């Protein structure tokens, strides 16, 4: 489906642009992190260790004053029938065991970021695919048939666009609740990851399932399909006038065949560019839903940012680190999107096109 010319343009643009290279490296890195999480994650993302709570990341230490029971010669001091307390300054240093520190329950932040990448990327990829499926179907039909079909479908799209995507997403998740599907993690269930971990001396006991946030995927797709519909409609409108489409129809190809074999392949470039940018937009949307506590995910970058808020005066890193992960991922995806757009120049309008 990708022509030699397209491939050459992509390669040329990649050689020219440093930003495109950075984007690809970031995206590949994040994907690898998500896929190989059970191999590389230092701990299980849910493993708590309350004695190690709020340990700072490497390069930082914290000073905290605590009220502790006063002890003398190994016994509690009692004056006037009351247990005497004193202020004690506690210094906590970073350790290499937790490079990015630990959260309020002593869970390792690096492990949570590695596993959080799975949630973000699953929602990003599945949500975008579903949105593209709906949107491309609607858009191609509208553009191919024009007339009344076009009017009905695109007015429907206008109605969807009238709702701010985050507001609609919150409302739908709120209405539908949080259906989640645990899918078994092939690396853990097959025993490859545990064997690898015990061989290199990492703690075992990684989660056996990956939670697929079903409602969130459906909702982000329902909210974002409109952009795909607009782009593919525009493409279909111009492609249907091409000679080869007319030829295919004259030869008696059915509408379905004409659209799938002739219109879609020629409209695929702008759809792919839009999809890249939509993965970024959907990752942002998922993190916002998780931040508000609506997604039901308990290992998610957005959710961890919200969890860290109660420690904002004592442990800044709990909210900071997952946010950096989001920013880096989204920058990477936007750079890849820019690269595809500059190389293929499809001139996309709408949210993804700026």
């Amino acid at each position, binding site marked *: 489906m990708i022509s030699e010319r397209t491939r050459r343009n992509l390669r040329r643009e990649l050689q020219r642009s440093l930003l495109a290279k950075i984007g690809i490296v970031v995206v590949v890195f994040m994907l690898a992190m998500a896929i190989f999480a059970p191999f590389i994650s230092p701990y299980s993302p849910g493993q708590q260790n309350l004695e190690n709570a709020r340990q700072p990341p490497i390069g930082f230490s914290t000073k905290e004053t605590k009220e502790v029971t006063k002890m003398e010669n190994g016994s509690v001091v009692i004056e006037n029938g009351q247990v005497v307390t004193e202020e004690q300054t506690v210094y906590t240093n970073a350790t290499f065991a937790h490079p990015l520190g630990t959260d309020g329950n002593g869970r390792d932040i690096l492990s949570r970021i590695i596993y959080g990448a799975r949630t973000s990327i699953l929602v990003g990829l599945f949500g975008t695919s579903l949105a593209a499926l709906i949107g491309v179907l609607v858009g191609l039909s509208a553009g191919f048939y024009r007339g009344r079909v076009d009017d009905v479908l695109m*007015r*429907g799209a*206008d*109605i969807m*666009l*009238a*709702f*701010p*995507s*985050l*507001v*609609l997403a*919150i*409302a739908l998740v*709120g*209405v*539908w*609740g949080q259906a989640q599907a645990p899918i078994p993690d092939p690396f853990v269930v097959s025993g490859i990851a545990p064997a690898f971990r015990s061989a290199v001396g990492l703690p075992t006991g990684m989660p056996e399932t990956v939670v697929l946030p079903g409602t969130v995927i459906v909702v982000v797709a329902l909210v974002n399909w409109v952009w795909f519909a607009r782009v593919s409609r525009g493409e279909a409108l111009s492609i249907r006038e091409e000679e080869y489409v007319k030829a295919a129809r004259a030869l008696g190809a059915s509408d379905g065949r004409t659209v799938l074999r002739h219109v879609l392949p020629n409209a695929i470039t702008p759809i792919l560019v839009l999809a890249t940018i939509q993965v*970024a937009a959907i990752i*942002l949307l998922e*993190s*916002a839903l998780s*931040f*508000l506590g*609506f997604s039901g995910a308990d290992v998610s970058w*957005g959710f961890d*940012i919200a969890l*860290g*808020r109660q420690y*904002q*005066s004592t442990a*800044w890193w709990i*909210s*900071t680190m997952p*946010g950096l992960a*989001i*920013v880096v991922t*989204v*920058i990477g995806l*936007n*750079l890849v999107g820019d690269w595809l757009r500059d190389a293929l120049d499809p001139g996309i309008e709408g*949210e993804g096109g*700026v």
Partner: protein
Amino acid sequence: MSLSRFLIKRSLQGLFVIWGVITVVFGLRFISPGDPANVLLPPDVDPEVRAQVIAELGLNEPLYVQYWDFVSGIPVGDLGLSLVTRTPVASRVVTKLPATLELAIAATIVAVIIAIPLGVVSATRRHQPADYSATVFSLVGISTPNFWLGVMLILVLAVQLNLFPTSQRPIGIDGIVLLLVGGNLSAAFDGFTTWLWHITLPAITLGTYFTALITRLTRSGMLDQLGQTYVRASRAKGLPETLVRYKHALRNTLIPVITVIGLQLGTLIGGAVITEAVFAWPGLGTLIINSINARDWPVLQGSLIVVAVGFVLVNILVDALYAYVNPQVAYD
């Protein structure tokens, strides 16, 4: 097609979309599991009482009656009663509206003031350090989740440095106007400084994405305009460069930028919802989130309708402005 015909057509389309919005919002209740009566009643309630409540809410009426009640109330500002407080939804939405509008407008002002000069500088000094900084800023700006930015601003500027309050809105523009009308000038001034102090961080939080977006748009639009023949012609006839840039090129750049600002209003309102959650800002977003948590459908439906209808109206306005400035649009 003349301008007035274009406007009439656009308004009719808008009316249709508003009707669609209302219908979709009405339908929301029917795709949700659970009965609205369960919100009001304990689960072990007497079936007779339950039937009575359902009758009072009109939930046993045929669907078309319920739909007609819902739709016919809206033009006269009747959005029903809250299930939880039994007060009119419309008045609750209206009391929350100023806080959200204020935040959205403040964010837009922040964005426009920073972004347009930044975009112009970036375009006129292409491939210079200023351009690279602006490009990096806008890339980071569109990639940063605004709720996280808000949390970071609170962390650094409010908690650590204690320069700004972490949350709340002790006074709004409506309160300040009341003080002004009452002739209490010093109190109004104090109110204004308090307001400014509290809205700064939320406005930056909400405005950063737009600043980045408008910077990008202004830069690319300006570059596009500066490459046009009329720019070369004006330079050739000896117009000063500032006049060429700011009177001609910038003006033509701003037209599409304004359209995009209008189109992005939905994102702005969506952003306001989450910004309000971060800063405990008592606006429409907080109302929406609370109504979902309380399963208070009428309040959620009312807020959604107000937000969506507002969005449609603003877009018609932007289209009208656009068609007025650039009459070609009306003929397409």
